[in-house]
């Protein structure tokens, strides 16, 4: 916890300093009263103050938060999830919702250890269910790609 708290504290201080660099150019209200910069600046001061306290306190003990064990394989799962979302964003408008969703669901389930047959069936069923829910019941258009799916 100690090391992570120090890093978190530094990040918050950096955020505070960053806010200052941005608000520097903000205009003020008439008669020189603070305007759009007032709240961001106040937050910047708080980020820096509390960030420093966090670093100082990290030396003493904090109530230990539960850290669940994670193996490299599982950490790779997290990056996989990020990849899935990114892939969705990139291809959905070209390929359409039905194909994108079914394929990505299938890949993610396979990665998480579901059997081939189960992954195939459930990914198709979930996709059809979402399609029914959004485009038929709620009447929200989902992206349809070049194939019109």
């Amino acid at each position, binding site marked *: *916890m100690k090391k*992570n708290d120090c890093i*978190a504290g530094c990040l*918050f201080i950096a*955020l505070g300093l960053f806010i200052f660099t941005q*608000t520097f150019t*903000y*205009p003020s*209200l008439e008669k020189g009263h603070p*305007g*759009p910069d*007032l*709240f*961001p600046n106040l*937050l910047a001061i*708080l*980020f820096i103050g*509390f*960030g420093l306290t*966090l670093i100082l*306190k990290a030396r003493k003990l*904090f*109530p230990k*938060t539960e*850290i*669940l*064990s*994670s193996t490299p394989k*599982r*950490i790779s*799962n*997290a990056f996989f*999830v*990020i990849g899935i*979302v990114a892939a*969705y*964003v990139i291809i959905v408008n070209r390929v359409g*919702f039905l194909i994108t*969703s079914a394929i*990505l*669901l299938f890949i*993610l*389930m396979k990665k*998480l*250890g*579901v059997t081939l047959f*189960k992954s195939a069936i*459930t*990914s198709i069923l*979930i*996709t059809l269910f*979402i399609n029914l*829910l*959004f485009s038929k019941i*709620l*009447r*929200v*258009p*989902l*992206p349809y790609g070049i194939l019109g799916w």
Partner: protein
Amino acid sequence: MEFIVQGLSLLFDPKVILVIIISAIYGLFVGAIPGLTATMATALLIPFTFFMDPVPALVSIVTMEAMAIFAGDIPAALVRIPGTPSSAAYTQDSFELTKQGKAEMVLGVDVVFSVIGGLIGALILMTAAPLLAEIAFKFTTFEYFWLATMGLSVTVMVSRGSQLKGALSLFLGLFFSTIGVDITLGFPRFTFGSVELLNGINFIPAMIGLFGVSEVFRSVMHGELAYPIAKVQAGKIFKGMGRLCKRFKLNILRSGLLGTFIGILPGAGADIAAWIAYALSKRGSKEPEKYGSGSIEAIVDAGTANNSCLAGAWIPALVFGIPGDSITAILIGVLFMKGLRPGPLIFERQPEILYAVYLSFILANLLMIPFGYLAIKSSSQMLRAPRNILMPAILIFCIVGSFAINNTVFDVGVMLVMGILGYCLEANGFPVAPVVLGIVLGPIVEKNFMMSMIKTDWDVTQFFTRPISAILCIVTLLIWFFPLIIALFQKVKPSHPKGRASKME
């Protein structure tokens, strides 16, 4: 009376009934699965409610949250993992009783006292909200500023673990709320030339990311939880409940009132209500030694409190537009997006919608008896739902939901960033709920402060000299200095035997 009839007619529309039933099943399922919280369920529900009329949208949230908070008790009793954080306070007691072969009784108590707690909360909501709305008419920007500041302070006060980290989470939320066009000059802040950010961070994808996607990350990183599930005979759960109700009638009243009050406090939710009710129950009990090793009294008290808290949280949300907990924080975001401004004006202009909400609380709690029974009956199947299929499904729901609101992939990006942030925060002991409250309360604090200042030509004294404003200011200051006061008090009175005993645990 007229409004009650109108509210009932809104509620007994076949479409609304269908929405209630689906929301009930959804709430029970999400609540019963450890790790999936009621807040996450709300976040995932928003894209749907966004496309519904106001009444079914509100009713579905009410039903879902009531069911989810109850259903969180089921895995607490059967596998010793709370289904939602609100059941954490009495998980140990529930499981100990299950080990003693009393699973049926525990689950019966969970259903019955959740229902009673929920009904107490609903009755207080019905009576208190219109009365407070009268007072709310007198509120100006000064009072709203203090009210929102009070909400922010309570959020930090009650954050679990370290208050320092709670405060930092809150500041992050406040910072996110400053992104976009500012209210005084229309100056774009932190938009970096992006057109999408001019209107600020879109609230719905942000919520879905913070509560939905972060949970997917947590689950895929920490793997399957394998647990043996205790067997229950659902038919026996209601046996002897009448006797227990009689025996614990004072506990019910105390915890129901306490839970609702904690709900009303801006920023404190059902999990806090359960913990405080548990602590008070132990202090007032004739058998405090049983607490932690299977006390039915503890479950009665905490189980009543967490369900009564839900309706309580709607009071400040509807009357002032200040959220009582993280679920109502999401709710307020949704109401704003739908063009419904929570506040005293709703009470004058659309009272029938409010009555539909009140009545749906009562209906949802009554429905909890048959639905709760069914949920307990199918508990072992629900608890065996495979994570590695559930999580991909949740992820795709998150993506589609975030996309559907504005039909832009930019929002999916917001969702992903918030999901990563939510995961990193929680993994390092920073609570996520204050982030949401910051996002919702930030604009209220800033807008009311700036408007007050411009209105009075920067005369700060007005914040302290107006009567209601002064009272709210004192309360806020008391909250800030509460830890200090407690510390001083303990120094003056160091050897209080009871205080020491409770500290030992």
